[in-house]
């Protein structure tokens, strides 16, 4: 048995070893942080009590929004043709949320009391709501993924029982996601004196929810295209195009609300006279929303692998910039003090990211995650078959 494991480990490519080294280094720094406290390990201060970790959490949760967006489309709206994307996306979501939980744990001064949010509720607190929703939703993601993990084991007998409860749990999961994706925006409402007025709004929860939908879709698409090269599996082209079709609509609603809010609160002039903040804000909207919106409204781009990947990556970049702006770059300095992370803060983040990539690759390697996706070699044949079905529906139905 041990020999078998050693042999298996030896067969891994060099990439796995590099990731593992980064992960071990990062997690050692994390252990030191828990032992030494926040003062010596981070650059957090009274003026900036939250830093890059919170910005990372916000971005990762938005990215993991792919899991609930897709679950809603497939199970609630019955778009069954998108089903092959469910397993890889749920796995990515679960690993995303797990890394957020690890980083949140790092951020807690009293990590020994992390369970307190379960027993001491404050219903007025957005952070309380977020903690509960993330904890519950991670459990639901694990539940949704469990058939994949159990499929080739001797416990596969319970899978039909698990699947029986899929629909109610998917609905609960989508509800919880709606709540915490938006509550992450609510977090900054009570901080209004500190948030730059370009970003501050009572609509922050709605902005966060809509951008998480766009980021989620973009994540599913880029995941499918990247795994075309990395794992040799992908989604059929027409499914990717169908997913991409939703993005311009989502971003359109976002742009209208965002600019409409500035117009109504009479803050539109801030767009051009806030110096570096204007640049950040416009970069977010133009690079992350306007350009991908234009790109993806062309059918040709939606059906081009490079085109759709470019647009999706722009959306993701825009959402990351947005989350970093709201939680870091656009926070007003106190007494001229600004914040830049310490190397240990960054090392812990990179270590957790490396662990996440490693975990994803290993699970995808050993479990039937891509089972329902199309193998790249068969892609052309499949496309021919699909074309045939469109051109000769009668003949195809008769097969």
């Amino acid at each position, binding site marked *: 048995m041990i020999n078998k494991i050693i042999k298996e480990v030896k067969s891994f490519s060099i990439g796995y070893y590099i990731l593992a080294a980064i992960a071990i280094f990062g997690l050692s720094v994390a252990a030191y942080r828990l*032992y*030494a*406290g*926040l*003062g*010596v390990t981070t650059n*957090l*201060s*009274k*003026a900036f*009590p*939250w830093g890059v970790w919170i910005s990372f959490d916000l971005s990762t949760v938005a990215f993991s929004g792919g899991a609930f967006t897709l679950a*809603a489309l497939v*199970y*609630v*709206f*019955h778009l069954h043709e998108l089903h092959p994307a469910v397993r890889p996306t749920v796995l990515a979501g679960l690993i995303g949320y797990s890394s957020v939980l690890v980083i949140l744990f790092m*951020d*807690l*001064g*009293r*990590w*020994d*009391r*992390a369970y*307190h*949010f379960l027993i*001491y*509720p*404050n*219903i*007025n*607190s*957005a*952070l*309380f*709501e977020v*903690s509960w929703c993330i904890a519950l939703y991670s459990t639901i993601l694990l539940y949704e993924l469990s058939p994949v993990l159990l499929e080739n084991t001797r416990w596969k007998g319970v899978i039909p029982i698990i699947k029986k409860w899929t*629909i109610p749990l998917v*609905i*609960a999961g*989508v*509800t919880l996601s*709606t*709540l915490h994706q*938006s*509550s992450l925006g*609510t*977090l900054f*409402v*009570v*901080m*209004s*004196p*500190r948030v730059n007025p370009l970003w501050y709004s*009572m609509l922050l*929860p709605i902005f966060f929810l809509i951008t998480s939908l766009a980021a989620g879709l973009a994540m599913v698409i880029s995941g499918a295209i990247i795994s075309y090269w990395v794992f040799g599996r992908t989604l059929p082209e027409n499914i990717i195009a169908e997913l991409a079709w939703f993005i311009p609509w989502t971003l359109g609603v976002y742009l209208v609300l965002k600019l409409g809010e500035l117009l109504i609160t009479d803050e539109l002039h801030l767009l051009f006279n806030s110096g570096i903040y204007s640049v950040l804000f416009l970069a977010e909207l133009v690079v992350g929303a306007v350009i991908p919106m234009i790109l993806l409204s062309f059918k040709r781009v939606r059906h081009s692998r490079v085109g759709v990947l470019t647009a999706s990556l722009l959306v993701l970049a825009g959402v990351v910039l947005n989350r970093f702006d709201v939680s870091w770059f656009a926070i007003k300095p*106190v*007494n001229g003090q600004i914040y830049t992370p310490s190397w240990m803060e960054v090392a812990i983040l990179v270590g957790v990211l490396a662990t996440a990539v490693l975990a994803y690759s290993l699970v995808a390697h050993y479990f039937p995650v891509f089972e329902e996706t199309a193998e790249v070699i068969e892609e052309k044949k499949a496309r021919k078959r699909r074309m045939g079905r469109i051109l000769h529906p009668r003949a195809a139905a008769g097969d």
Partner: protein
Amino acid sequence: MSEIGVNPNQKGFLIDAGRCIDCRACLVACSVQNEVSNTTTRIWIKETGVVGEFPNLERYSAPYHCMHCDDPSCVSACTVGALQKDENGIVTYDADRCIGCRYCMYACPFQVPNYEWDQMLPLIVKCDMCVDRLAEGESEPACAATCPTDAIMFGPKVDMLAMAHQRIEDNPDKYVDHVYGEEENGGTATFYVSPVPFEELGFPTTESTLSPAYSNRLITHGTPAVAGAVAIGLSGVYLTIKHHEEAMAELRNDALAVETDQPEAEEPAAETQESDNDQ
């Protein structure tokens, strides 16, 4: 959302920057009373630095600690409810509950909560009006009791506010016409009078006279309704589409059954006949 007059037990401070001599006895008294180190104090000094032209140099200072807001942002923010506003208007801190998330530090518009950055398991450091000392029957918190110039005064909140206005009225040349803390963040229990504008003392200027805690509650109190609406809406969509799909499938089956029924109704030989017809 001022609660003045509602509860006569509400306590408050009156702090006079014109009387403070920056002796820092209040800092020492606070550290001793509450057993906190001087590095993470609950109270500190805001000052103008030396201003004016020689020989008319001036320097003003004022002790600064928790304002004990009427509608505190920190109490709304605190994940675990460690921060509470008690019936005397004191914003109290339960060190046994705190998880050290530091949300209160960001939420506070006055940047009051301090943190034990050098501790392995840090806690928040914040003025609680010496609530234990008052419970023991003392009449004043340690800082007010120690202050040699009565720059810090303590008593019923209504009296403190009235006294603040009285001082400005009696000495309109000495004080700026602004009681800091009366309107700030929707009203507080700490009132400042000062001979210089508060920005020069380094006090945060808050334009809003409504606590952000109010906006926050507007949203968080809507949560159960949103959750219910989303869950019911999604279930509705799921069932509607499912019903529709089943109805469509049934229709298809019926159509299929009709097609297959017809040849069956005829003689068994009909099958060949039909294929003949097709040709």
